[in-house]
């Protein structure tokens, strides 16, 4: 006797398994952008200067590369950066001219920068090279496709299914032949669509698939990963945060103090856009549908909302109207999330949750913002307990036992979960 039934079972099981595997693969394509080890000067430049200066481009302020040659007096340059008002008051002809050239827009003072800091910044500025990958005229950014194996798995599954079907048919033909030979009367052949075994398996597969989709759908209720709505103004984070390296906190400064990061108010835009009134030097911008964006026209939209007349430089507050952006990142009402907690205490980079925002023209929701996603991070993220010299956050001094454990090397780090970061009322109250 040929025991073909167990073979069939094995076949079906493997098909089911491979189907599930291929489906499961669809859901888990995640990535994170790790913060690079930027040189100190670059970091300082990004935080302090980048909102008005670029090393090689003139924006609100002049292009900075070559400044050490233009101003050879190092002390003077340092004084200027620290407190430009003082230098102007002293009447330096070079700076006075510069001040007038830039329509008397005063530069911020930076009393907090040390001489070493300024040297770091200058070093960075002078050694700055224009990023070679910056796309030129063609504008089409070659996208590195993330390897998506779904199709491959699908085809494989299909081929395997066909092979299985053929083999089953062969198997049954051979059995029939051998039965004929041994003289066992052949049963009436049943077509496969009336074969109860087939029908059962098809139903089973449909049930499993259906169940899977229902559960996935239910879990996904209200979630909107990859949500990328069209905004009233084509604001490109790539141009601002990427190419021009405006610090995230320059515009979203609210995130430093508050639970909300907030979309910046329009007066923040005008800090730079009072001077930058056209988009000409950057790469061409395209919408998702492929149509080209006129950057200058988008800036004009901003002016309209602010009530600003670019020609006269006058504001008409009566004509001003707020921009109604479409909110991308939405949390349910029963979730409390605090930006300042994460970026200031946890020192989490914006990109950890928001993805490579500096590469996005129109922003899309990068993360699932699901509870599992939050919890996973809380389980693995280490808390700033500091080392034995006590340079961690002093708040955690109350956790005497954990400090003892760290000292005795019973634990090598404390995660957010250890201090209760996965408890309900850390986020739900």
């Amino acid at each position, binding site marked *: 006797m040929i025991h073909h039934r167990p073979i069939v079972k094995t076949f079906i099981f493997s098909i089911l398994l491979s189907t599930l595997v291929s489906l499961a693969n669809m859901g888990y394509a995640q990535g994170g952008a790790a913060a690079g080890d930027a040189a100190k000067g670059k970091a300082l430049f990004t935080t302090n200067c980048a909102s008005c200066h670029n090393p090689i481009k003139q924006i609100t302020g002049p292009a900075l590369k070559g400044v050490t040659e233009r101003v050879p007096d190092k002390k003077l340059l340092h004084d200027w950066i620290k407190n430009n008002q003082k230098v102007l008051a002293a009447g330096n002809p070079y700076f006075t001219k510069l001040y007038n050239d830039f329509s008397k827009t005063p530069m911020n003072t930076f009393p907090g920068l040390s001489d070493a800091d300024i040297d770091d910044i200058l070093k960075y500025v002078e050694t700055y090279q224009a990023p070679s990958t910056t796309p030129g005229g063609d504008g089409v950014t070659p996208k590195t496709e993330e390897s998506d194996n779904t199709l491959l798995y699908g085809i494989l599954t299909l081929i395997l299914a066909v092979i299985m079907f053929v083999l089953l048919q062969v198997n049954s033909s051979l059995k029939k032949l051998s039965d004929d030979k041994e003289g066992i009367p052949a049963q009436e052949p049943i077509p496969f669509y009336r074969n109860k075994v087939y029908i059962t398996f098809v139903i089973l597969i449909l049930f499993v698939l259906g169940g899977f989709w229902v559960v996935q759908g239910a879990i996904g209720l209200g979630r909107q990963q990859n949500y990328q709505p069209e905004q009233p103004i084509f604001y490109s984070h790539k141009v601002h945060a990427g190419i021009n390296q405006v610090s995230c906190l320059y515009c979203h400064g609210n995130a430093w103090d508050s*639970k909300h990061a907030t979309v910046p*108010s329009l007066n923040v835009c005008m800090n730079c856009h009072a001077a930058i009134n056209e988009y000409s030097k950057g790469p061409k911008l395209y919408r998702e549908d492929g149509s080209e964006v006129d950057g200058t026209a988008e800036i004009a939209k901003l002016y309209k909302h602010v009530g600003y007349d670019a020609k006269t430089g006058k504001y008409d507050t009566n004509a001003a109207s707020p921009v109604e952006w479409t*909110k991308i990142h939405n949390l349910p009402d029963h979730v409390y999330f605090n930006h300042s907690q994460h970026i200031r205490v946890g020192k989490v980079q914006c990109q950890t949750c928001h993805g490579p925002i500096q590469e996005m023209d129109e922003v899309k929701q990068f993360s699932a913002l699901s509870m599992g996603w939050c919890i996973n991070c809380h389980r693995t993220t280490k808390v700033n307990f500091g080392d034995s010299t006590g340079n961690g956050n002093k708040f955690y001094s109350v956790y005497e036992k954990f400090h003892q454990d760290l000292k005795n090397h019973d634990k090598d780090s404390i995660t957010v979960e250890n201090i209760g970061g996965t408890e309900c009322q850390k986020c739900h109250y």
Partner: protein
Amino acid sequence: MSDKKYWQSFGERSNSEAFQKSTENEFREDLPLEGLDGKGLLDAKHPRRDFLKYLGFSTAAAALAASCEVPVRKVVPYVNKPDNMIPGVADWYATTYNVGGDIVPVVAKVRDGRPIKLEGNEMAKGYTNGATSARVQASVLDLYDTARLRFPVQMVDGKPQEVSTFDAFDKLVSDSLAGSAGAPLVILTGTITSPTTKQIITEFLAKYPGSRHVQYDADGYSGILLANQTTYGRKAIPSYKFENAEVVVSLGADFLGTWLSHLEYSQGYAKNRKIDEKAPKMSKHYQFESLLSMTGANADDRYVHRPSEAGAVALALLAELGGSVSAPALDDKLKAGIKKAAKDLADHKGKALVVSGSNNPDIQVIVNAINEAIGAGGTTIDWSAPLQTRQGIDSEMNTLVADMNDGKIGALLIYGVNPAYDYYNAAGFKTGLAKVKTSISFNDRLDETTELAKFVLPAPHFLESWGDAEPKPGYFSFIQPTIAPLFKTRPFEDSLLKWSGSAVTYENYFSQYWKSKLGSMEAYEKALQEGVVEATTAAAAGVSYSNAKVAEAAGAIAGIKKGAGFELAVYQTIALGTGAQANNPWLLELPDPVTKATWDNYIVASPKFAKDHFNLDLADRRQTDKYEVNPEKHMITIKVNGKESVPMPVVFVPGMDNNTLGIAVGFGRQSAKADNTSDFIGKSVVGAGWNAFPYLGYNGTTVEWSAIVDGINDKVSAEQYKVAVTQTHSSYEERTQVVKEVTLDQFIKNPKEIHEEREAELKPFGGIENFDKDGTLYPYYDKPGIKWGMSIDMNACYGCGACVVACHAENNVSVVGKSEVLRYHDMHWLRIDRYFSGDLEDPNSIQTVFQPMLCQHCDNAPCENVCPVAATNHSSEGLNQMAYNRCIGTRYCANNCPYKVRRFNWADYTGADSFPNNQDQTTVGKLDPTVFQMNDDLTRMVLNPDVTVRSRGVMEKCSFCVQRLQEGKLKAKKENRPLKDLEDVRTACQQACSSDAIVFGNVNDKESLVSRTRKDNSQRLFYVIEETHTLPNVNYLAKVRHTDVIRGVKKEEGEGAAAEKAEKHA
């Protein structure tokens, strides 16, 4: 029959059948399954198959919903963001509560432009020092009251007609004023303490010769003012320094709850009530009164008398102290009490204080004589800083009403008062008002007075205004707006300035005045920022006493008429006072400290009254159920001044004088046309009680708050009235060691008594020391970082309810309305339990204990074990957490909670659900209009955005204000420092408590106040029903009474308990 030692209800005392039954069930009703008709589930109208159908349908619906688009949400940033505000971070502005004559410096928490919470201003060192009352806490809700008038109106035939602009309104008024040339103009206000307003009124009056300003207070204190005029030559109310008083005798003054500057007094009083274990010592408080007031409930020795005997008691006390008056005839027990009090007073000369709640100047003259005799002047009575609120003189108002009726008044400007409701002679005022040609009201809604005025210019709420107040000389408190005016309102002062021809607005006037007075812009800004400016030099304290009028006063007192039968005492409740905030759902749902009733007033009477009139023996276990289990109360009518009242319900309170009935003012608001009440005064006041102001009388010089009852009709109707009483809602299933009390003498003799009792009880389970680990099978969990804990000192809790309302405001606790309270659906996270002990027959023996009860955050919590979905569980910081979105509403946790502090959302009280029909009255039962008032978009602006609004079908409870804990911790982390005790974290109830009875903090920090409190008071410390090994994180400090005997503790316990058991089994 055995007497229970402590009881919350008569039924509990007599251990009635209904009480026994009630202890078995947490929830009194079955699930609202329709159409079961006593048949099995399968035969029901909706059998199981239907359930499966619904299940299938809802799954399909959810699947459909899943495929639908998620709604698109917008985010709209400012065009030009103000520099000083950060969305998502609260700003705090110092301002001043000035409603109904009370002045309380507060700070307002403003979140994204909306004031959402008020807290006491702790810069106000010399005055309220950060204390708040329930009314102050609730006043932020009045800002968002839906019944507020939204624009200026002209009243035509009792209907408001909008006046389009202020200019048009000014024109109407000036035309009308021009027509009444010659006849004097009167400004009628409450007591004005604001220096700028006073000055503006003076300037205005100068433009209208012959006109005058009349100050009228609904709860006037003319008695004290006139008496002080007589004996001290100053028409003023001194500061009472309770902190210096070792003996306090109160003759009917509710000085902890409603009397004068009660917030100051309760703080001072608390100083001598808290016990230092090492040197136990506390003040002695005698109370002589007719009703059981909240202050009386806190007294050490308490004696009752008829309201008409208030003067006699004062005279007797003076006589005992050697005054040259003869003691009138009084009841023996009362006499003994007076003798005892007099001896104590005499022994503590210079450290004693006598206050009287009477508004009769003769009685106050005698009280002044007593205070002179005990040397109170200069120590407990301070004339250097007299109180400047409540300066109204009753006779001036009387004259005004007479003048109005005589047609002598040409124009009446009414601001902030409502005499058509709260004047004893409201009828006379109304007829008079009709004769005034130009009547203008500046109130915030169309209240009883305003709807009778011809022109109405709505006044802004204090949170929308500029202003100042001077509650004591040289002591200023400032009002600054915390939100732009919500409606088309204009400050009263603006109108006066405008109508007197001035071009400046009040805002400018105010800033000019203070800039010049304080000397500089910086000083002005500092004053606004801090909210208060305190006097640098004390005013002259010179008063000289004259006893010339004592004999005359004694004579007058002897002539006070005594009722043959019953007498009526009219009082104010803690929640509503005189009713200025009557449409405030938080206050209406706040249980009265003594009766624990909500949403109504009623006649209070003694248990003897029940026996005499309704043949109801409240000591009998079978009969108490008739009265107590059902909310229906007997109705009576009373005849006062020859007028028969409408039927009103009676609530029986032990400790009431047997010949006194009481009724509270502040309720029974009604428009001239009753149908208008909801629109004009507010949705919540409709049907809330009866107006008791008409029972006030006039004795020729002042308004009297008592009356003689000429007759009682107890057979008016078989119909009874439902009163929503909360105290019977939660019980401890006979675990009676919930409150612990000792006398001061006992405590001095053996301070360890309570500690030893605990030690003996816990000994088999490891003793106090190891009870947490040895008393259980469950594992022991570490609390590595912070462990939150609370300590409540029962010596300092007076039951005022400020914490209850603060909790409402902070935590978005729902208001459920009277019909839901009647169904035991009240939602208070924090309740104040009131226990009586003593002999029902003897009102003098009744002792009362208040115990705030909230989630105890047990480390071994019974609720956590029974939750099938782990929606409630424990945090590593010792919090008993509640995840609302996880809760499926089985209510097992509430059933298993021994403290009965969990609350279930039977309906969608706050409009939280996204499905539109969850307030459908056909499925959840009738909801009161107040629920819909609270759900209005306007009212919802008061919600705290950091706290989830709970939806129907989930359980909720105290969270220890976890949002504040998280915020405080975050602040410390951002500033890279350890948590600062008291500075970073305070719960709302702790903040609101005027006597600092509640202490909260990190118990793992040995230096925190809560740790120190527990350590320093280890002898008094106890946990409620700790023998059940719940390991609460809330501890209580036992109450020490400065009295001879604790009624609740009986030594013949063994016998009594055995008898009780025997009876139960029988």
